[in-house]
């Protein structure tokens, strides 16, 4: 079942651990951003829903969709679905159209990651594709492991960590929203800037790496 380019020489245990540590450290800003944004999305979903098991559905949709903007945008549709008055097919079409417009940008990420993920096995590629979000993309692009195996291991660990943060954030938010009746305070005002700073810092590095003077000696 392997496709043309299986991953040669797998990583050793020490290397794997180092890669994981790197991914964990790099994903800390994402934890800050996803934790709070996911929490907000979860609260919203639990409030607007009227769904029977909001925590379950919020968690499932976070895990299956893994898209921040869509999580917020889909809430009215979920509420209508929970009301049970509209047809299943119509709602599904509306959700598909919404997802297509909101997440169209994801199609472009793949174009720039094609050469970087060429060595991945198809299974790993399915996982990498599923966990490809704005932040994961930015960190994938920033990753400077020279060896393809290390890079792919890093990318997939990063993806799993980030989808974990997001799902945990959304589920916690939905649980809090379902439990508390009143409006919840925003946990920490301004923490969303971690996402902007992450993109900006990676853009800086990227532009520096592209400038002809610094082409060499960037491999970690």
């Amino acid at each position, binding site marked *: 079942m392997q496709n043309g380019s299986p991953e040669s020489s797998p990583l050793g245990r020490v290397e794997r651990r180092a890669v994981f540590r790197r991914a964990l450290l790099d994903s800390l800003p994402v934890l800050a951003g996803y934790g709070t944004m996911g929490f907000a999305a979860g609260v919203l979903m639990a409030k607007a829903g009227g769904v029977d098991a909001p925590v379950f559905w919020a968690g499932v949709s976070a895990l299956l969709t893994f898209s921040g903007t869509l999580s917020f945008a889909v809430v009215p549709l979920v509420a209508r679905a929970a009301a049970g008055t509209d047809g299943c097919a119509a709602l599904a*079409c509306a959700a598909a159209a919404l997802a297509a417009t909101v997440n169209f940008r994801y199609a472009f990420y793949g174009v*720039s990651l094609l050469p970087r*993920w060429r060595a991945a096995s198809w299974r790993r590629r399915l996982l990498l*594709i599923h966990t490809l979000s704005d932040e994961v993309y930015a960190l994938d692009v920033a990753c400077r492991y020279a060896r393809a195996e290390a890079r792919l291991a890093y990318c997939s660990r990063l993806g799993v960590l980030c989808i974990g943060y997001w799902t945990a954030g959304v589920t916690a938010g939905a649980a809090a929203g379902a439990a508390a009746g009143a409006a919840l305070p925003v946990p920490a005002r301004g923490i969303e800037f971690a*996402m902007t*700073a992450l993109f900006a810092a990676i853009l800086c590095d990227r532009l520096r790496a592209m400038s002809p003077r610094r082409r060499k000696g960037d491999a970690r």
Partner: protein
Amino acid sequence: MSRACWSVAAVVAAAAAVTYALRALPFAVAALRRRALPAGAERFGELLAPAMLAALVVYSFGALEWRTPWPYLALAATVALQLLARSPLASIAAGTALYMALVACAGCAAPPPLEYDGAHPLLAITGRGIRFGGEYVTPAQAVERLESRGIPKDATIHILLEDGYDDRRAPWVFQHNYLGKAGYRRTILVRPRRSESCAVGRDAAAPRRELQRRAPGDGR
């Protein structure tokens, strides 16, 4: 499973399927082609990365208070630190901390943004006189303050009538002889929400009637 439950499942499944398909699109196209991509495509992908990152920086500003100078200052600090120290985690943490501090300080120092709708009336009329924000003012001063705070003339000015205040004449004079003459033609008298037990007994229809009373020349 109930019909509503199926509908929610359909919405989640459709959103997830479309999102996954968008993420997978470039990889699917590349796999179906079965030929190496032209060199130009890889170069395009390389160039696409910084462009996408720059777009993400701009896009993420939507979640911030981008009408204030704070995100721009914090972004400049993040970029400067990243160019100097080249440690993404440090510059992200510092930039985010700076942004949070700026936003928090600005929140303390500057007056909170004026919200003026039925839930947040600017003006109140009580037994003691006219109140603007926390202090009592003369009618002329009230108009002056509205103008100095930059409230547009076509804004709807809600005037809260204190619970139990039942003089009809004074609010009318204020509406017409002061606000109306200054150009504020859209004024609405509101009474506090009667949500508590003490309010149930007396004239329950009053708030609605008051809400519909408007200044002459309103056009509606």
